[in-house]
């Protein structure tokens, strides 16, 4: 059942087998799995529980509601904007529904470098299959491709570059294109509409609008959490305490390490908060003669993945993915100002948009100064910068091959490429922080998996090396950048974590 927090008029104490902090792809999956096995579960979410009536398809109203920090989160020096969900359902509520398995080459690297032998493609396959079935994942069809995706696909075909359709978690999608603002028709098989209701039906208690302040540890073992309601009735704030046999951190790659650090849980080898990867991206625009209307239809149906470097090393390479945006985001993203920017906006219906999404090797860090605020540091390495620029060149070339009249690059000033092979505009421009502008929708790392406690925080099942009773089930467990949107991988690994917890208790 979902608690109506406006009825909370006193301090509350709950008892459960498991307390899960966060209700996104990982937290909701663990909640569903464990409650189905008869365990009592409490899920705490800092964001609100939203009815689809709140998804108005208007940017100014929904972005502050659905995204963390009102959509204004960024790394601390403001060089990368970070967008992730902040309501019951987490980032699954605002995702473009891409559900991809982790690439086999990446898993091989994890096995070799981090000793994660249990995460081979064969061993993970049942978990991926189960996650795909639960989330109604199916491969998209050629008829699902809108004009924005078609522009990218056409360019890739003409240049002989590898590309493919991706799989999505949609049920009878109407193709309105407002996925990033929450699905007003509940056609997205996200955590909010699938896993949270299933967990609730099985007896889980969902507590929205509540900030967990700390994980409670007694005699070296986690025994619950304490926090306070962000919304309640009458004079507040009222507190929430949950006593539990295990605590699952599932607040994402920023939220989970913050909670760990704020709780002053053991961190002997200073690994907590480190190895932050962002899969950062830049948005490139291409103007065509015919209408594209990038905001209409399924936003991301194809991916161009020829330039991912998955087999030789962890990280490196990039892919191209279509990008959809509504007027506010487009105006903020498009370069330049004044009449030049207005002319670009007037070309909005004819603009194709796509990202160069980096499989980053750069590792950032999430820190919590004693008594102070959160710090997110992330400084793109020289090698990764060069990779982004290479991606911008190739994407510009691809769009021009597809018939674009000009390609607009993601700098502050208006910088264009109009002829294939002529990349002086990129080559001669120095790289400055926040110019080109980077953004991230997939923060990950920070509490990574591994067998060596000196180099990792949790084992391959998400169990904390140093704190009995603490598990992690979100994107923070990945030991490197995943190269692909991690929604499905988070669900699959969370199932594995839940199965491990259940089996351990049975024993």
């Amino acid at each position, binding site marked *: *059942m*979902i*608690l*109506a927090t406006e*009825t*909370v*008029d*006193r301090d*509350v104490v709950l008892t459960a087998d498991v307390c899960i902090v966060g209700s996104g792809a990982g937290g909701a999956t663990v909640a569903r799995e464990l409650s189905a096995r008869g365990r009592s579960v409490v899920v705490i979410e800092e964001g609100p*529980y939203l*009815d*689809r009536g709140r998804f*108005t*398809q*208007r*940017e*100014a109203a929904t972005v502050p509601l659905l995204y963390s920090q*009102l959509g*204004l989160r*960024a790394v*601390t*020096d*403001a*060089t990368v904007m970070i967008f992730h969900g902040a309501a019951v359902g987490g980032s699954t509520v605002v995702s473009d529904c891409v559900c991809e398995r982790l690439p086999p080459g990446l898993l091989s690297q994890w096995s070799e470098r981090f000793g994660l032998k249990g995460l081979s493609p064969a061993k993970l396959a049942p978990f991926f299959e189960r996650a795909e079935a639960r989330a109604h994942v199916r491969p998209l069809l050629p008829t699902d491709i809108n004009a924005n995706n078609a522009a990218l696909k056409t360019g890739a075909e003409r240049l002989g570059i590898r590309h493919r359709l991706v799989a999505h978690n949609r*049920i*009878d999608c*109407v193709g*309105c294109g407002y996925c990033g603002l929450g699905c*007003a*028709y*509940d056609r997205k098989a996200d955590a909010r*509409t699938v896993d949270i*209701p299933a967990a*609730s039906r099985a007896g889980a*208690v969902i507590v929205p609008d509540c900030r967990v302040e700390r994980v409670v540890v007694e005699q070296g073992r986690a025994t619950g959490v304490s926090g306070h309601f962000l919304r309640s009735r009458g004079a507040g704030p009222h507190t929430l305490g949950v006593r539990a046999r295990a605590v699952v951190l599932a607040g994402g790659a920023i939220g989970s390490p913050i909670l760990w650090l704020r709780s002053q849980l053991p961190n002997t080898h200073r690994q907590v908060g480190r190895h932050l990867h962002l899969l950062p991206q830049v948005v490139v625009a291409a103007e065509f003669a015919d209408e594209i*209307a990038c*905001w209409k239809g399924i936003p991301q149906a194809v991916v161009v993945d020829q330039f991912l470097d998955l087999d030789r090393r962890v990280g490196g390479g990039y892919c191209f993915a279509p990008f959809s945006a*509504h*007027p*506010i985001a487009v*105006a*903020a993203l498009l370069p330049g*100002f*004044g*009449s030049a*920017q*207005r002319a670009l*906006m*007037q070309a*909005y*219906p004819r603009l194709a948009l796509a990202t160069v999404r980096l499989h980053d090797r750069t590792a950032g860090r999430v820190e919590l*100064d004693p008594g*102070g*605020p959160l710090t997110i540091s992330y400084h793109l390495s020289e090698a990764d910068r060069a990779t982004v620029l290479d991606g911008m060149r190739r994407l510009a070339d691809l769009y021009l091959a597809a018939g674009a009249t000009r390609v607009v690059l993601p700098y*502050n*000033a208006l910088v264009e490429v109009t002829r294939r092979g002529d990349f002086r505009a990129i080559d001669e421009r120095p790289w*400055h*922080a*926040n*110019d080109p502008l980077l953004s991230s929708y997939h923060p990950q790392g920070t509490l990574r998996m591994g067998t060596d406690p000196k180099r990792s925080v949790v084992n391959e099942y998400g169990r904390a090396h140093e704190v009995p009773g603490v598990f992690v089930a979100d994107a923070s467990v990945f030991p490197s950048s995943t190269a692909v949107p991690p929604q499905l991988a988070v669900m699959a690994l969370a199932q594995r974590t839940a199965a491990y917890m259940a089996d351990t208790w049975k024993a």
Partner: protein
Amino acid sequence: MRAHDELLRAFCSTRVGRRRFLQASASGVVLLGIGALLPNGCSRYPKPAVPLQVLNPREYAMLGVLAERLLGVAGLVGAGPEQVDVGRNVDALVAPLDADLRSQLRSALRVFEHGTYLFDLRRKRFTGLPPDQQQQYLAGWMNSTLGVRRTVFRVLKALVSAGFYQEPRSWPAVGYDGPWLGRIAVDPRGAAEDPVPLDDVLAGRR
């Protein structure tokens, strides 16, 4: 302009403890410090036509001018019936921000308004400059070698973009046909679960 960036950079050598938005860099802290010292009066700015929650008349006026220059929409911004009141819209957008972030935004606006004296050696504040000089001044922030000035440029552009393009009357000119809701009939799938009162949760009642 770049010489002034370097001058500002030279003042910035201390590590910053508390970091957020403009406080992320030493130069940001200096910029905020300058903002705090600048005059806060609003007597020479026209009064907004609507009551504001957060912004003062100077900030309201600045946002209108900024929207016109940054978005190239001169004449379309204002309180008139055919115009978009960007200042009012931004006021509503920033009202829910925490006090710390709001304060930094307002400092940034103040520095931008009066930075004409420092960065461009002009005798008038930004809103008092003729349009062509406002354009030059904006270009200085956009192309600055100082990261914090580029960040301020980005933030201001995002703010006025949100203030202007949130209104349906701004959409036809850019070919955006707006949300589907209300235009097409779609049966929603499933039914949302209704939240239950605390007493029912404590009693285990559904």
